[in-house]
């Protein structure tokens, strides 16, 4: 075991993993986290906590993960390179490990232009691939980037993201290969709506044998409405929603839109379940955490496996 986290144990045992997501509150309100946690508990194996996603100031990922751990769940600390240099990152990784956090997701982060502080200075001292290398160096060699020995090595299960729907398409698998080379343990993909395109990407992944070196979790987000589908398709960078999916949402009766969205999500999960090289799903029910249990149950992934300590 590299980290001994619940997520790592599930994946190493060959179980089909389910991870969830929790966006922290725009303030210090612990009740928001408690409410979301209650919907996720028992339904997922670990929960990603976003790090000031879309550059909007929120409670820190470290603090939120620590709170989730106290509530008996397992947090995966997302860390973006936008706001911290290598000094702050490594310091936060020490702190996170000391607080019981065992999973990290290394990201470059959305540009600050999107958030509520567009005039901020960004950092981008290192990128997400270099961050993977750094966390691995800390874990496997017990050293910080500068070369000094670490007192109390943070043994993290190292994750990263992959977006098969961004451009250039042919390069996306190369970038994944670089993350594997850097030492990533698991990958969570961008939300999948275009399964055919995702299949083509996975073919390239398998051709390089990458699926045998790491665990790939397919990203899914249930659509709540036609408006949300259109918004995600046009306004969220790197998300592709095929016309036929939008049409399915449009054609559903008015009072059944949400149900249709859940069905599309469940069907996607079922197809991912059968796909060679996919070891789990990353279920991002954005501000719709109360549906996680339904989706996981409908997809036949309930109850979640229990692993011993």
């Amino acid at each position, binding site marked *: 075991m590299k980290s001994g986290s619940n997520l790592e144990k599930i994946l190493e045992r060959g179980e089909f993993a389910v991870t969830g997501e929790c966006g922290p509150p725009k303030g210090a309100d612990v009740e928001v986290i408690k409410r979301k946690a209650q919907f996720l508990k028992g339904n997922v194996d670990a929960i990603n906590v976003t790090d000031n996603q879309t550059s909007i100031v929120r409670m820190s990922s470290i603090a939120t993960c620590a709170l989730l751990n106290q509530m008996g769940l397992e947090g995966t600390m997302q860390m973006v390179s936008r706001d911290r240099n*290598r000094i702050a990152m490594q310091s936060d990784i020490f702190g996170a490990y000391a607080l019981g956090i065992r999973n990290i997701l290394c990201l470059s982060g959305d540009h600050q232009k999107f958030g509520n502080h567009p005039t901020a200075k960004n950092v981008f001292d290192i*990128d997400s691939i*270099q961050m993977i290398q750094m966390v691995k160096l800390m874990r496997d060699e017990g050293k910080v980037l500068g070369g000094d020995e670490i007192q109390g090595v943070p043994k993290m299960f190292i994750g990263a993201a992959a*977006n098969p729907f*961004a*451009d250039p398409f042919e390069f996306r698998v190369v970038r994944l290969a670089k993350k594997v080379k850097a030492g990533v343990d698991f990958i969570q993909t961008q939300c999948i709506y275009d399964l055919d395109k995702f299949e083509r990407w996975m073919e390239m992944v398998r051709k390089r044998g990458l699926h045998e070196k790491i665990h790939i979790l397919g990203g899914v987000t249930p659509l709540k409405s036609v408006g949300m589908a259109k918004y995600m398709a046009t306004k969220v960078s790197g998300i592709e929603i095929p016309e036929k999916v939008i049409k399915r949402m449009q054609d559903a009766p008015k009072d059944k839109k949400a149900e249709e969205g859940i069905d599309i999500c469940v069907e996607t999960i079922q197809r991912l379940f059968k796909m060679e090289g996919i070891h789990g799903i990353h279920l991002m029910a954005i501000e719709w955490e109360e549906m996680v249990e339904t989706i996981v149950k409908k997809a036949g992934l309930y109850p979640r496996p229990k692993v011993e300590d």
Partner: protein
Amino acid sequence: MIVAERKPFNEILAMVEPFEKILVIGCKTCVTVCSAGGEKEVGILSASLDMARKKEGKGIEIKEVTLERQCDPEYLEQIRGYVGEYQAILSMACGAGVQFMAETYKEKPVYPTLNTKFIGVALEQGVWSERCAGCGDCVLDKTGGICPIARCSKSLLNGPCGGSVNGKCEIDSEVECGWQLIYDRLKALGQLDKLEEIIPVKDWSSSRDGGPRRIVREDLRL
């Protein structure tokens, strides 16, 4: 070249508010080429200030000068003979020129009239674009002659990130994705294998992060 843009007129007008006799000094190098602070712009700014002040009923005497360069002592010396007759200097040079002017004439208030933007190129008449961030340790050999520091909005060394769509950057559909450009160029050169290698963590100490920079060339010193 260094590309600059003139400050809003009212900002400049406010700077010279206390003065009755000023020098407006242009620079014949970069800022002339990018039409921000050359002889022509010195003339336009001086005439506008003159008119605005007359309108306010308190005229201003302006001497227009355009030096070869404001980043070289020998040219700055050319105004020494008469600088004492003026209350302030409006420099139309880049930030380096403004500062060097202030260093040279310590007793004289020196004001900037331009916002210095970037090291860039003239794409077409009236359009300039950034190319170099002056990081002090060039990586263009690894990236097909396209700079990821200056041209990727996140300065990623192992891009493109997930926000690259149709060749454009996530920050603006008008901004080209630097890493898409790198990819296309390396593909055309038959060097895509270069992108399989991880570019290691950058040493930013050669950049501004290492503190103010200077170069000493012993072979050239007198």
